[in-house]
């Protein structure tokens, strides 16, 4: 591992990288904060409208995506362990699978978006909601839905690029780039993106369906 000039030794550098990622993830969480706060605000102000809107989400696709993402997280964990154990081929295979599952998630999400676009659920001038009474609340719900899932998809895209870069690094045998420490930091990020989804899934897809 290369040690940058400001560090004394490898453990210090590794500690800084991991800790830096944790703090970065804390800021990321705060990024989602206003949207989640807006969501709870909307839900407490217009409970019925939000519930009605949430019943329009594609729960089957959302559930499928949850499964896809959780599986990817498992594979990511295996990849990190493989990297640590110097099992380069296994690590590379796992990383490629992780990226593939990421793509699957995005594809399913895209299909959902297309559906919603066709049904005029995209907020703005063309927005239309079957139940006119709830249209304003539904528009806010859908705005938050697109903002939250869009932001999540953006993070996932960045994650996929990162994972592919490490897979490519391992292919060239470039362990200095794709060091176990770095793959572990990337893994942290990937799990974080998952955890965000674990929150989004119930509040966007499930809430309106209870009762």
């Amino acid at each position, binding site marked *: 591992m290369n040690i940058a000039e400001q560090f004394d030794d490898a453990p210090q550098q590794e500690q800084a990288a991991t800790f830096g990622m944790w703090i970065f993830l804390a800021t990321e969480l*705060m990024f989602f*904060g206003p949207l989640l706060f807006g969501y709870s*605000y909307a839900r407490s102000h217009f409970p019925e409208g939000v519930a009605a809107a949430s019943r329009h989400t594609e729960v089957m696709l959302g559930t499928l995506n949850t499964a896809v993402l959780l599986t990817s997280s498992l594979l990511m964990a295996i990849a990190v362990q493989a990297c640590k154990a110097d099992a380069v081929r296994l690590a590379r295979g796992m990383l490629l699978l992780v990226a593939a599952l990421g793509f699957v998630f995005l594809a399913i999400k895209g299909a959902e978006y297309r559906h919603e676009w066709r049904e005029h659920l995209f907020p703005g001038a063309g927005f239309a909601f079957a139940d006119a009474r709830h249209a304003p609340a539904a528009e806010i719900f859908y705005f938050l839905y697109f903002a939250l899932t869009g932001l999540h998809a953006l993070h996932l895209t960045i994650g996929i690029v990162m994972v592919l870069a490490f897979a490519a690094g391992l292919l060239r045998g470039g362990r200095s780039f794709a060091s176990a420490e770095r793959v572990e930091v990337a893994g942290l990020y990937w799990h974080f993106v998952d955890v965000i989804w674990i929150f989004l899934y119930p509040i966007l897809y499930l809430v309106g369906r209870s009762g």
Partner: protein
Amino acid sequence: MHARVTEQAGGDYLSDGYSLRSWLTTRDHKRIAWLYLVSITAFFFVGGAAATLIRIELATPQGDLVSSDTYNRLFTAHGVIMVWLFLIPSIPSALGNFLMPMMIGARDLAFPRLNLASWYFYLCGGIFTLAALIAGGVDTGWTFYTPFSTMFSNSHVILAITGVFIVGFSSILTGLNFIVTVHTMRAPGMTWFRLPLFVWANYATSVILVLATPVLAMTLLLLAAERLLHVGIFDPALGGDPLLFQHLFWFYSHPAVYIMVLPAMGVASEIIPCFARKHVFGYRFMAYAILGIATIGFLVWGHHMFVSGQSVYASMVFSILSFLVAIPSAIKVFNWTATLYKGRITFSAPMLYALGFVGLFTIGGLTGLVLASLALDVHLTDTYFVIAHFHYIMVGGSVMAYFGGLHFWWPKMTGRMYPEMWGRAAAVLIFFGFNLTFFPQYLLGYGGMPRRYHSYPPEFQVLNILSSAGAAILAAGYLLPLGYLLWSLFYGKRAGPNPWHATGLEWQTASPPPRRNFEATPTVTREAYMYDPVTGRESPQ
């Protein structure tokens, strides 16, 4: 490992390449500090120019200099530039960048590349904001309140908030870098409770930066979405709620005042013990108070919303919590005072600034309690009382401390001394000009003069003229250091490593410091501020 070579080649960080390119691509925290220093100073004077126009306009009761619309754009420009481009980055990004690694005995911040990127974010955001100004300005006030900013304002709101959004990333990255650095890169023996209070203060500030700034960024994105797509999030006509905007905005912007003032407290805590030759009184309490202020600061944003229509119960809770912040703040003031008690005080230029800071911060803080009282605030809100209050905190507090810090560490940063008499004269002039500018505004506000109007009833004129006259003196006071500090770069006498006989690690290396700060990583064996009031030197223990 090529770095070892440059280190052996000797020379200080300033002689490490002279081309513009070597500066713009540097990863040395000390040079990046200079990049900030220069750009922040430029923005300070742009913001100051707007303030000058505001004060000239207000010298007469009629709105005769500028139209009301132009006036709105002026105070918005002034507020936006001063808050986002000057106050927030000033101490952390300029002084903090220079000093934090040295104070903990590190060679650089943990992520030097990221540090440079932060400056580029800052510059880029600043350019967007200036572009909004040049394109015609913004009339929303620096708070960008909805639904005015989303539906009615026909000014360049999107351009301005893009700038603020980008500057926010600079804050976040700097905060992240500082936190990781303090956690992982302290020299052997530098335990948490041996850290200088300046490091504690910037550490706590970084936590606020990292946790609060993303909220502002996202809030601005929502604002942009509403303005561009007309979805109702904040606008009641579209089903949204403007209170939501205020909650989100102040969730960031109240802690932001601690982003401005905590580092200032850190500066005062370095200067006062040094020129009183005493160990800072109650070091641990000082550190805990910093953390306390940072924490409680997250819970009081609603005191900006007493008249917004939020529930009175919420207002009561926010009022009580706001009073709580006074406790750690008072601890700090009392402990500085106790540090001075029986000290061997030298009234050098940095000390004068630091004492000015303590006095003005105290007045600003006490009037803050007035505003935190629910009933009084209903009377005083959006009057000049508020303007006076926040200028006492932000200008009297933060800017004073920033100047103090600049004078204190100038010899370290440049290797040169400035003319001491000029330094003292400027400090006194600023203190006097400041009080003449802003004290009358308390009276104006108490008498009922509202803020953000370009004309006012004639009976307020006397106090307004006093205030404008004070502003002229203040402006002269701010221009002086620009002159003599630049002069000192060429003609100032050599400072030597430790002209103030201070105890911090940063004083144990050459002035200006070598490229990697220390010839060999120092080992710390004792607490900060081991001054001896009897000999006036460092205490042997």
